[in-house]
């Protein structure tokens, strides 16, 4: 999509009643996506949302765009086909932590490495919402849920580490309590060419209420959220009281006063080597410690669809546009008179 058009949020709201539980974090994300759309200047008719199954995955029905609510876990694969067939469309993918990381984990990591032009929103509420509360691949160890009455014994994924390990070219993180930050992340993810993924900390107030309360609540944010800004030293806390350094390859939180501002690591999201982004992703293994938000990584590499189209063009330039009759005669032939 090249042209931008002017829309209001209303233009992005479908005629379907939104059916999430009252208080669900998904409402705020929906609103932020719709607002981001107006800022991006997208055309609803040139936009498609593809999702799997889950509460989050109901998303397409609420967007006044083209949309497919597909099957559990398969949205990155289906969206890849759509994006490759239709480079003129903006293709967004929406799903939960179960949809994208459990059943759909393989499609997600392969979409990452291929760098198909998709904008992927991963709603991480650390629980299976739609099926009423089982632990998910991002649930903390020991979590008591309906399927883990004695506590989950699964060690969780760190979604940012996982996609970085899968060669992701754009990786961001945001949360459902900060609309402005969400809009910014969605815009940047959209503008990135290739696969981009944004992890959204989302509160499921029915089955996992307060999962992120320790870091996203108004009074905790300042000390618990490490805002990543490209080109700037990584600082957070009141008046930047704390910062991050990479010490022997490992990210560590320090008091700024102890080391001095100049010793803090300067964030470069376009670092061609993903190692620093990876180190940053390890900072908070649970949302009870300071957690980086923002763009971890944003690098340019060949976009799958672009290279595919280039091969089609080259083939046509080299061999001429396909002629069926020529094709039929391309193996040895003989005449019977």
């Amino acid at each position, binding site marked *: 999509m090249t042209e931008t058009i002017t829309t209001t949020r209303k233009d992005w709201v*479908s005629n379907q009643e939104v059916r999430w539980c009252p208080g669900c974090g998904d409402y705020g994300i929906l609103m932020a996506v719709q607002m981001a759309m107006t800022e991006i200047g997208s055309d609803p008719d040139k936009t*498609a949302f593809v999702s799997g*199954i889950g509460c989050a995955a109901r998303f397409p029905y609420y967007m006044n765009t083209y949309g497919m609510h597909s099957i559990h876990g398969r949205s990155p694969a*289906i969206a890849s086909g759509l994006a490759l067939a239709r480079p*003129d469309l903006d293709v967004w993918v929406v799903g939960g932590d179960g949809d994208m990381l459990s059943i759909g984990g393989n499609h997600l990591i392969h979409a990452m490495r291929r760098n198909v032009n998709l904008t992927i929103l991963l709603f991480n509420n650390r629980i299976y919402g739609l099926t009423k509360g089982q632990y998910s691949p991002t649930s903390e160890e020991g979590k008591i849920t309906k399927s883990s009455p004695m506590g989950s014994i699964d060690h969780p994924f760190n979604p940012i580490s996982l996609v970085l390990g899968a060669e992701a070219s754009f990786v961001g993180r945001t949360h459902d309590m900060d609309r402005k930050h969400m809009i910014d992340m969605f815009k940047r993810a959209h503008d990135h060419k290739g696969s981009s993924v944004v992890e959204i900390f989302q509160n499921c107030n029915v089955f996992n209420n307060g999962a992120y309360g320790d870091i996203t609540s108004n009074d905790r944010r300042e000390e618990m959220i490490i805002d990543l800004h490209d080109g700037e030293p990584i600082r957070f806390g009141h008046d930047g009281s704390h910062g991050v350094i990479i010490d022997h390859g490992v990210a560590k939180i320090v008091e700024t006063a102890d080391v001095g501002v100049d010793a803090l690591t300067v964030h470069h999201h376009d670092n061609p080597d993903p190692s620093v982004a990876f180190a940053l992703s390890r900072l908070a293994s649970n949302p009870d410690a300071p957690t980086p938000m923002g763009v971890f990584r944003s690098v340019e590499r060949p976009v799958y669809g672009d290279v595919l189209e280039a091969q089609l063009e080259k083939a046509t330039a080299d061999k001429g546009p396909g002629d069926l009759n020529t094709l039929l*005669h391309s193996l040895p032939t*003989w005449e019977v008179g």
Partner: protein
Amino acid sequence: MVTRPNDAKYVDGKEILVTDTDERTSEIPEVERIIVRFAGDSGDGMQLTGDRFTAASALFGNDLATLPEYPAEIRAPAGTLAGVSAFQVHIADHDINTPGDSPSVLVAMNPAALKADLPKVVEHGTLIINSDAFDERNLKKAGYESNPLEDGSLAGYQVITAPMTELTKEACKDLGVKPRDAERSKNFFALGMVSWLYSRPTKGTYDWIEQKFKGKDLVIAANMAAFKAGDVYAENADLWASRRVVRPAKLDPGTYTNINGNTALSWGLIAASKQAGIPLFLGSYPITPATDILHELAKHKNFGVRTFQAEDEIAGVGSALGASYGGHIGVTTTSGPGLALKAETIGLAVSLELPLVIVDVQRGGPSTGLPTKTEASDLMIALHGRHGEAPLPVVASSTPADCFFAAIEAVRIAVEYHTPVILLSDGYLGNGTEPWRLPSVDDLPPIKVEYLTEPNNVGVEGAPDFMPYLRDETLTRPWILPGTPGLAHRIGGIEKDDTGNISYDPENHERMVRTRDAHIAKIAESIPPIVPRGDVDADVLVLGWGSTRGAITAAVGRMRRKGRKMAQIHLRHLNPYPPNLAELIKSYDKVIVPEMNLGQLAHELRAEFLIDIKSITKIMGQPFTPAELVERIEGAIDD
């Protein structure tokens, strides 16, 4: 009354005439047909040799049919029975349908090949043997206690031996080829002998060697030398008495090419994309014996063909579905295990009512089964292998060249009826070849594609409104491309009403389930009535589907020539059936259905028509031969 014309054309593609002539002998220099089987170690290049002999015969004008057989291992241990690779080719001066019952000539490059394939050879058949390979080690590996070349056990055959390895090395000596490399050309020595024996023109082979090994001058030289040496050896070794010639067949005039099913199927998809005027998208994961379709389509990017090698079969079909949603012809190719994996996504396509073509090149099952062997045991999963009520059309190809037309028909149904379609081929069709009279591009069936660009409905207040699931008289919903201004809408796998939005309403569900069923049934209206071949006054009908067509045609032909009144039907459409099938099938006293499974179509026909179908089954990873079919059909008639 039911029409039963004789010998009519009954499916698209190549006309099959009933002139298979097993009763004649091959004792005279000019023979009507020869069946040659090249057998050797996997590393001996037998597939190449067979292919080359086939090509030469095709160019010479014979009709032919081939059967490649190779081990599942990339390379099985040399010299063992498991490592034997063989290629059988049937050439004739008339129209034939199968690679033949039993080879009249066996080329055996080593003891294992002889041991494995001798039982297949006709009585008094010709054996052409590489005597160099019959050393103690090889004999032992093949499980021979004594040397069959010496112990008299081959007395019933016409045995022609040649020290092929040594003579090939000899021939290459002065070319600068290392002896070990020279040895590799011994298959061309064998080819040279066989070409001389059966009077194949040699020029094509020379050209082909030069073409094939371009840039590898030593290899070209060695192969040429070996080929000539074989030719000369045969001439000098006083083999004149064994010499035979098979005249060109009287085929319909036209331009012919020798084609295998996977290539024909690929070309059919490209042709369909042309006919429909929309691009082709293949989402696929490699699997034997379907992978060659991916290989072939990947070559034709200048036709606007996009191929996407997915991470698995689910992503293969998913990406194809996504492309279909975007307005392409989404295709996915696979074999049994992959079809099983795709089931859930195919169910989604049924619910969405989007076009999609799923190609299943069947192989031996269950599970990994016999990957390199053929079977036709995926009919049930194709028809019924989805949860819920998820009907879809199933079509089958029946000869290698017919795969071209079957692919076009599958795309036609998918695109015109907005539905996923399963196209069944099998390993025998996919790898087997036949000469194909190339159709004129202008004669290919048209495929109608319409996208909805304006609202198709008027809303409550008279304003334009549209309904993604509003149907036309064929019960087909419109194809609406994302990007179309003003028609943005949502679809999904949860039950929906005509707006595409979710509906949990019980009556709506019942209506949608029955409508989807009726929609698929309605496709029958676009299928021409099927016309049986054979005798108008037949009381026995032999009904088949898939790759049994050649064998059934030959068997029915033989029985009719012996005076049995019989009719034959071969089904392209397995769901829905051709509109007149009910009427037709009930008009025979006996209906016999040969299948390469345990009777899957027979089961379906019994349920549909309440007729006591006689089922003939074979499940050995190999096609029926006409001879065994004659015997089994006779048994079923007497039954």
